[in-house]
């Protein structure tokens, strides 16, 4: 299934229902069992896919319903990462995870989650993984000489899993690296780790960089100037950045630093409950087109919809789809 010009997608996560939050916390305290929570997750993923399809998105994800947060899903699966205490006060909290020895290579189990997504939609799909830089900021390192070394080894292990994802049919893989914005000084080695992660991975690679969206608020302030020119060395096809709540000032960077990246343009503010009008979305997209050709633009929310309620998330995605359609029409597409 091909996608139109200005295709639409979520960044990764969809609205996390409060009932699921509660069940996840109960699972953390072992009040419900693994088979039950797995079944709950399957149901939630199907519902998230259905909502994305109903909203009219061209590319869908599994809504990241199985994930407590962007770190723990991977910390639990990365071979060699230890989690001493499994219960947490609130499911969204981070585990205290730690690396105490060299990471072995072993399956992470992402393939099954991808296959479930693929089996439940006819649309184009995207599968998201948290990048090595963000992971090393939350996983305690008690073995490697430094963060860079740990990040490179995480990349080595995850690279194998990404290739398996491709073998299973994943055509688009997104790497999430919000911590870049909190630690701009790390960018040179972070990009090195990113390139190691995607080395030889035969899929469309998307790199998502935001200013944090934990609890629906930014974790850092600043602008995207710090990315350039180092980010030009990243072996990715697409950069997805947030432009809705921050405004489009940074778009000019794509003219200042010529590049071939597709740009995922954040056109929906996910840190705000008010639902944009399609016209406002269209205006944001048009603004981006002043700097990037339409053929290289993908339309997305700024970041994940995790913190939005379902009606708000759905309303925003619907407005985004309609806004993209308005621009497509005006382009004669």
């Amino acid at each position, binding site marked *: 299934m091909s996608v139109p010009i200005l295709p639409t997608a979520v960044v990764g996560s969809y609205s996390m229902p*409060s009932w699921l939050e509660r069940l996840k916390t109960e699972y953390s305290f072992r009040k419900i069992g693994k088979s039950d929570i797995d079944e709950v997750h399957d149901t939630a993923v199907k519902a998230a896919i259905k909502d994305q399809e109903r909203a009219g998105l061209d590319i869908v994800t599994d809504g990241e319903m199985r994930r407590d947060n962007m770190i723990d899903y991977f910390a639990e699966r990365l071979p060699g990462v230890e989690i001493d205490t499994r219960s947490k006060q609130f499911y969204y*909290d981070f585990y205290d995870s730690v690396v105490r020895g060299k990471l072995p290579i072993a399956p992470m189990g992402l393939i099954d989650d991808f296959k479930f997504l693929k089996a439940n939609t006819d649309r184009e799909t995207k599968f998201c993984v948290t990048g090595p830089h963000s992971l090393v900021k939350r996983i305690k390192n008690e073995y490697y000489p430094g963060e860079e070394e740990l990040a490179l080894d995480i990349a080595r292990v995850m690279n194998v899993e990404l290739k398996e994802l491709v073998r299973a049919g994943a055509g688009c893989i997104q790497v999430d690296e919000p911590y870049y914005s909190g630690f701009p000084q790390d960018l040179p080695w972070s990009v090195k780790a990113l390139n190691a992660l995607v080395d030889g991975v035969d899929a469309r690679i998307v790199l998502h960089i935001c200013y944090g969206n934990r*609890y*629906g*608020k*930014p974790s850092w*302030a600043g602008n995207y100037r710090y990315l350039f020119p180092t980010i030009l060395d990243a072996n990715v096809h697409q950069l997805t950045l947030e432009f809705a*709540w921050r405004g489009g000032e940074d778009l000019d960077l794509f003219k200042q630093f010529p590049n071939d990246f597709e740009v995922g343009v954040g056109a929906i503010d996910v*840190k705000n409950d008010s639902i944009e009008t399609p016209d406002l979305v269209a205006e944001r997209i048009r603004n981006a087109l002043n700097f990037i050709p339409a053929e290289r633009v993908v339309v997305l929310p700024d970041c994940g919809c995790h913190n939005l309620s379902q009606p708000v998330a759905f309303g925003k995605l619907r407005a985004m789809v309609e806004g993209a359609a308005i621009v497509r029409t005006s382009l004669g597409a």
Partner: protein
Amino acid sequence: MIFQVNDMRKGRGELISRVVSRWMALAGEGKVHKDILPHLHVQLDWVQYKSNFREAAMVRKSIRNGGPSPLVEIAIDLRQVDDETLGRALETAAAEAAPGGNAPPRVVLEEFGPMRSSIIWAFNKLYWQHRTEWEEITGAGYEKALPSGSSDGHNIQAIQDQVVEFYDLLVDMDAKGQLSDEIYLMEIGVGSGERALLWLDSFLKLDREKGAGYYPKLRYLLCDYSMVALEHALERLGPHREVAVPREVDAMDPFRALSELRYKVLYIHLTNVYDNLPTDDAVLRDGRIYLIEIRSYLNADDVEDLCQTYGFRTDTFAETVRELLDVGPRVLDDPKQGMRFWMALWSKLQLEERMVTVDSLSEASLPSGLKPSHLEELVTSGPGTVRFQLSSGAVGSFASTIPLLHPRGYLQVMDIFVTELTQYRGGFKGPGKMDGSVVNWVNGALLAEVGKQAGYDVHFKPFTYREGSRTSILYTTHRER
């Protein structure tokens, strides 16, 4: 019948036993209707505020789906218990609590509704609008009405420590290249401007000592809903006016007026604002949740006296009150006389309460800013039987303030906080009367829950700068777990 003692301090035993004995005697005499006994809760409270809206013994009936429900409460304010009148007060309450029983003659000023919508808040607003006139008549500034006679918000040592803490943040951000050209900070509820003055004096002094030159970058937002208050505060600031930015802001919803500052403000401070914002009360009994509805009234005898003294008609008294709320003390040709009427009326104003059964929190009409999940969490982990404040205004204000915070910013609130739900079992925390305004303790446990779900850990520390102070300092940190 269940007696619940909500005042566990030493030395109350004898008083409590007198009340219980008297009540049991009434029951023995058949003056407590037998049908209410299985569902009767007698609450023995010590109302935090000497001046409040309660009778010595008040009756709370309960309703469900608009019809009567069996639970009945008789709430006794131990602080008002007087041996001479106790018997009569209890007997009156027992008669009212009986099926079909009525309260003594009263002039009701409004229909039953959520506490946050009551006209007591119109009185509260009226007070802040006419505070100067009130002070002229009483001869005392509003701070004199505070238990300590002054605001903890003006404590110079506390302010200096707060300035140092903020300065350290700026230095750290500066070292990391995170400091922008404009440093936003704000105070909501500016009072006389005294705190802003002391804060800016301290900051300027420190900045000169350190030589970092941050002072000119400051944008100190003075936020208040009263333009008059803002003008007075600005005048008070003298040379600091250059860095002050007055903004007309409703403390209940700061974001509405300041949305352009989203994620930009590094420090937000409020002193004694939350305790003066509308609230609702909820009751947990036998696993059920009830929301309190109230209506304000005056006893008919009091209305008679007021009308005689100030020349009003008793049959149109409720309209006279509404006129007072519309035009203030000029309800009478002589505004000073109007002020006296208002004061006398305020002192006699009482609240009748009823409990409305909530079958499902998701269907309950909760105040803005409050989600069912906030309450569910609190109720699940809290004590089984308790009455607590929803602190509607404070929760709404808090929820509408934190989106203004810079990713490294923090909120600091000095107020009277209940930090755990169990503390409500040790005393009735409001509403009370403070001069012409309404005062309530603030449900800090609920704010902590709201904060947690918005990505902030909420902490409380006692205000240690004045001995005996009941003020606590709420501050937020980013939830890093």
